[in-house]
């Protein structure tokens, strides 16, 4: 009686599947509860990974709801990489597909925020753009290509995403307003920080990330948001160290 890996795996995430025959106790009795140790280890460790990875979603849902949804998610989407730090990339879409959560329309974007914070935490180190590097002829400036720092992430939301994050993480923060908000994630040193972006700045940063010049990115942002204010966007990006240095030599 052999037990293949596929047979062992089959019953791991399915509590109703029978324990494979051929797994035994010391006396040769069927493994029963002994097999359940592996079942429990796998489910608990994956659910814990999600709870660590999605603190905002966990806060919004409460521990019981979050645990129930996590169990469902880990069965439907077991990890496909050994790097557990990035587990849960499909969690936002998964949450968006749960009918009973339809009244919490902002939940998928909150999951995207949690995901972006974690990606930023593990992103490559970089040297931030020094504002002094931009002191040049305005004509040259328009042709400059500025790249977001490796740890920079931008989220566009039709929900008050920044307010939701702040209200659920900061004591005494104001209640979320009914507005659409774009959020910049930046990592000044080691800890990623969400920052509320001025209107159009997300489109501007996106254009820069796609390799457009400052002039082209400004045009793209103006097409997105008619009253886009370049100086406000640039000042937010510089203050939060969201752009990479122009220096070619990036050795630390």
């Amino acid at each position, binding site marked *: 009686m052999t037990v293949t890996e596929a047979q062992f795996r089959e019953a791991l995430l399915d509590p109703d599947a029978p324990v494979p025959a051929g797994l035994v106790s010391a*006396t040769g009795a069927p493994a029963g509860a002994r097999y359940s140790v*592996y079942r429990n280890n796998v489910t608990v460790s994956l659910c814990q990974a999600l709870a660590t990875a999605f603190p905002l979603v966990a806060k919004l849902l409460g521990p019981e709801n979050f645990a129930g949804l996590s169990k469902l998610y880990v069965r439907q989407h077991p990890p496909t990489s*050994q790097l557990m730090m990035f587990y849960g990339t499909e969690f936002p879409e998964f949450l968006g597909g749960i009918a009973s959560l339809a009244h919490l329309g902002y939940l998928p974007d909150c999951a995207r925020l949690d995901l972006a914070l974690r990606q930023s935490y593990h992103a490559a180190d970089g040297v931030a753009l020094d504002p002094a590097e931009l002191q040049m002829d305005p004509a040259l400036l328009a042709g400059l290509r500025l790249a977001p720092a490796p740890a920079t992430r931008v989220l566009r939301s039709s929900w008050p995403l920044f307010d939701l994050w702040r209200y659920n993480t900061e004591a005494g923060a104001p209640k979320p307003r009914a507005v659409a908000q774009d959020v910049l994630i930046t990592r000044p040193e080691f*800890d990623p920080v969400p920052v509320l972006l001025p209107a159009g700045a997300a489109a501007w940063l996106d254009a820069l990330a796609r390799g457009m010049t400052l002039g082209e990115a400004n045009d793209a942002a103006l097409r997105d948001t008619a009253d886009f204010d370049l100086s406000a966007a640039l000042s937010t990006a510089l203050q939060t160290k969201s752009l990479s240095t122009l220096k070619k030599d990036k050795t630390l």
Partner: protein
Amino acid sequence: MLDTSGRYDHLPDAPGVGYKPQHFTDLMRDPGPVAWLEIHAENYMGDGGRPLAQLRALSEIFAISVHGVGLSIGGEARPDPDHLARLRHLTGWLKPSSFSEHLAWSTHGAEFMNDLLPLPYTGATLTRVAAHIDEVQSALGCRMLLENPSSYLAFAESTWSETDFLKELAKRTGCGLLLDINNVFISATNLGYSPREYIDAFPLDAVGEMHVGGHDEDKDDDGGPLLIDSHAKPVVDPVWALLRHTLAASGPKPVLVEWDNDVPDWPVLRDEARRASDILQPAE
């Protein structure tokens, strides 16, 4: 970056602890008897940020053991080449004093189960695991240590004892062994054999490192003891006694205290390391 190559070409015969980021500052200030640290390889495969910065700083002071949990060496499939490449990158820049993995599997097809799952001990699995170890050692360019698992059940089809299986793997591949004393105690209790007999049958000459850690106690379907390898508690006295018994036979070895869940404040873990130190260096 400083060149640390050759600083620690092997782990010292002294206590180490499993590194937890919350202990970073305490470790830098007050390591107690701790001479080396073990990290889980997969937690340091991001591109940058605090984890890698801390690891660079720690590696200037402590010898580092890289302990993988994701290679699935005991699995049916060959080790994932992408994951091997990530390990090669990590061990390439870090130049650790040791690399170890488990006699277990964790990947099936495209899925990673995030647990150390058991395999039967047969002639066929022996050949397969030996080939996987060969592949890992040649990819990383170093000798690896293979760890004995904690077992909750057995395979009816097994034809080898675990100690013979590990001894034969070491002989065929030249790999070393990581002897987890807590795992021996757990498996022996769960599968009804003597932990001392297991140790006495173990090829201690091949051991490059030992582990001790805490476990939880549960019951099986018939009310018999079922110990769970939780790494969430202090090491129990019988495991310390088994470590003493093993070291008396093997001579001094690097001994790691593992505490991965419900991680205590630093002084508690440091005191566990001190206990290991006392066993390694008995008072005259």
